[in-house]
């Protein structure tokens, strides 16, 4: 997957969330975005997924320029799976339906197929017994796993995950890591925003550090995390050694 | 169920029946009934207060003692007489018919036929008459006189039955499209209403009406409010009730 962001600015009212962000990555199968809270990771992810338009600048994924054109963004969205930082399951649908409905309606699977697929994903994430619960009846980690299952259910080309393991225990995190590895093997591509450096290092081949709406450093995962090239990156990563 | 100032005579009427009960440009009650009420109050030595109450609210108001008398061009009927007491009649009139211009009808019999539709104003004597005597035509009840007249003028109904003066005035409004049969086909009389059993007041009212008639009070009012109509009726050759 080729990624190119050129002088991307995203302004929310007074707040400049992304301030002339430039990233160019020639090829990556799994990109991790790391950086301090409020640095702009979620915003970058939303832009890359085509959910929002940048205030200015261009965004190119492989050969698609998705920055300025609404139609292109929408086409892009169809081949993409997204997990938001705060899960965002539909509150009026139970876990099973949250996963099965998009399969049936957007991806035109038969109803029975959709349910079978959803059930097998729920099983994979150890949620089968909770399939009829509403989101408000699920624990934090259960919610998050349903959201991940929903995002990868239709076999999208690219999956965007915003803090996918924040509510997960280490065992479940390992499970998600497995899922990511098998996605990469199936030639899917991933972009993950995360605070867990260990997770980033294992899951990603490329890492980008974003702080203050700007790129701090980008490069090979283990290299950036183990031998950061800039002072700001070193500072940030040192803190993470504590845990 | 309530105590009230004895020096005030409260008369209820619906102020939307010109020229009997209406208001002038400055929203003051005026008309034949109003002047009558004024004369009655001064005769009783009381101060007059007029309450403007829709027709349907008049009898309940009287029965619950919110007003003392009804002077609102109310026809004396059997059924009403079970709820309230009536004075001697002070005016005799009759029902007339408004039909559309090209309707050849000349009498009630002509419009009381299957497939015909007759408009009446709800609660009026026209309404009571039709429910009792009309056998074949369909009866449509209206809340508003204007609506009933419009229906005739737009050909939505065949006829509108109401009292003579109202039919005349409505015809004036829709001269291009309607025709009025101004020969009353029945007779009815208007009276003043009082609470059941209030014979004392009723006696005074009857005495007043007697005097008022003999002293030419009604004639004076007729000349004041209905002179034009009187003249026109004479020209058209119809009997005029007043």
């Amino acid at each position, binding site marked *: 997957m080729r990624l190119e962001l050129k002088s991307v600015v995203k302004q929310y009212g007074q707040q400049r969330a992304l301030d002339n962000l430039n990233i160019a990555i020639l090829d990556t199968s799994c990109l991790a975005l790391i950086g301090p809270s409020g640095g702009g990771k979620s915003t970058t992810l939303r832009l890359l*997924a085509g*959910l929002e338009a940048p205030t200015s600048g261009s965004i190119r994924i492989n050969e698609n320029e998705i920055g300025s054109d609404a139609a292109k963004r929408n086409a892009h*969205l*169809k081949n*993409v*799976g*997204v997990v*938001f930082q*705060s899960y*965002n*399951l*539909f*509150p*009026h649908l139970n876990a099973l339906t949250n996963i099965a*409905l*998009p399969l049936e*309606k*957007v*991806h035109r699977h038969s109803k029975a197929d959709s349910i079978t697929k959803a059930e097998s994903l729920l099983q994979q994430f150890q949620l089968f017994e909770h399939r009829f619960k*509403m*989101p*408000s009846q699920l624990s934090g980690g259960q919610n998050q796993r349903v959201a991940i299952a*929903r*995002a990868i259910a*239709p076999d999208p080309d690219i999956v965007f995950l915003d803090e996918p393991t924040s509510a997960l225990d280490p065992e479940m995190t390992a499970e998600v890591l497995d899922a990511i590895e098998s996605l990469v093997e199936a030639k899917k591509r991933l972009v993950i925003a995360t605070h867990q450096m260990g997770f980033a290092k294992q899951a990603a081949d490329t890492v980008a550090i974003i702080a203050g709406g700007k790129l701090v450093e980008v490069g090979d995962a283990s290299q950036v995390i183990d031998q950061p090239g800039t002072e700001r990156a070193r500072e940030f990563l040192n803190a993470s050694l504590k845990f | *169920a309530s105590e009230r100032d004895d020096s005030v005579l409260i008369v209820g009427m619906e102020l939307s029946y010109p020229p009997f009960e209406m208001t002038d440009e400055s929203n003051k009650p005026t008309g034949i009934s109003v002047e009558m009420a004024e004369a009655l109050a001064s005769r009783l030595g009381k101060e007059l207060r007029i309450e403007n109450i829709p027709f*349907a609210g008049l*009898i*309940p108001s009287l*029965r*619950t003692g919110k007003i003392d008398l009804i002077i609102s061009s109310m026809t004396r009927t059997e*059924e*009403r007489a*079970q*709820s*309230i007491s009536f004075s001697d009649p002070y005016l005799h009139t009759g029902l007339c018919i408004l039909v559309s211009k090209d309707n050849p009808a000349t009498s009630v019999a002509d419009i009381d036929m299957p497939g015909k539709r007759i*408009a009446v104003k*709800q*609660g009026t004597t026209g*309404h*009571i008459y039709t*429910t009792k005597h009309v056998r074949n035509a369909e009866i*449509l*009840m*209206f*809340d*508003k006189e204007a*609506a009933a007249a*419009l*229906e005739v003028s*737009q050909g*939505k109904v065949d006829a509108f039955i109401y009292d003579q003066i109202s039919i005349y005035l409505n015809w004036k409004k829709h001269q291009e499209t309607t025709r009025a049969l101004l020969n009353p086909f029945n007779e009815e009389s208007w009276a003043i209403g009082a609470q059941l059993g209030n014979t004392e007041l009723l006696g005074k009212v009857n005495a007043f009406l007697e005097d008022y008639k003999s002293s030419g009070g009604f004639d004076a009012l007729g000349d004041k409010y209905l002179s034009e109509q009187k003249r026109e009726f004479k020209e058209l050759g119809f009997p005029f009730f007043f």
Partner: protein
Amino acid sequence: MSIKSIFYHAAEGDDALPSRLSRYASFFLAALLLSLLLYGSFAALQYQWNWQSVLRYKAKFIEGWFTTLKIACVSLIFAFLVGAISALCGRARFLPVRYLSTLYVELIRGTPLLVQIFLFYYVIADAANIQNRYFVGVAIMAIFSGAYISEILRAGIEGVGKSQLLSAKAIGFSEYQTFRYVIAPQALRSSLPALAGQTANLIKDSSLLSIIAISEFTLNAQEVNAITYSSFESFFPLAIGYLAVTLPIMRLSRVIEKKLQFDT
């Protein structure tokens, strides 16, 4: 179980329904209180009841009640249609359509039904040469209630959180699908009480159709009233007749409401 515990609902577990005994006893107490108020008032009035004369006209009440019901049912269906379309038009891309919807809602909600019936029947329907007064009556009620339903639906639609719209977009839902599977179910749930209220209103408001001589429930009751001059005797059947329809609707809506509950 102490007397206090019968009438008091525990603070804890507010979701849990009070026991059946508690509910019945409390309801009975409340109903008793209201009845006493009414009874006392009538006693003070020393009103002389005259049910016979009203009873003679019971066919008129029944007939009018059914007419009202029929008109209300048909109008209701169209009112929902009109309301839903108008609510959708309020979100249209083509701006004049959007403003047309706003104008429609505001003009209808801002003016008395009386005026609308008059204008519609004697002017617009006349110009269009529509003669059937029942047809026009249904049309007017649909247009009138439709404006209210449109506004109710608009509020419901706007109440659905933005984060959910983003989520729907991320899933790949088309605009229609977002509406059908995300917005509509939640909006319907949250507008249910208002919709039930509007249905009750439609039934009651249809009484104004009497001014174009549609012989519905209220008109017939008033007619009996006008004939027999027994105001209260004809108003009681009127109140009960309306309650017989509106009460079940409101109750039903509460039951559905509870069933559809979900937490955001």
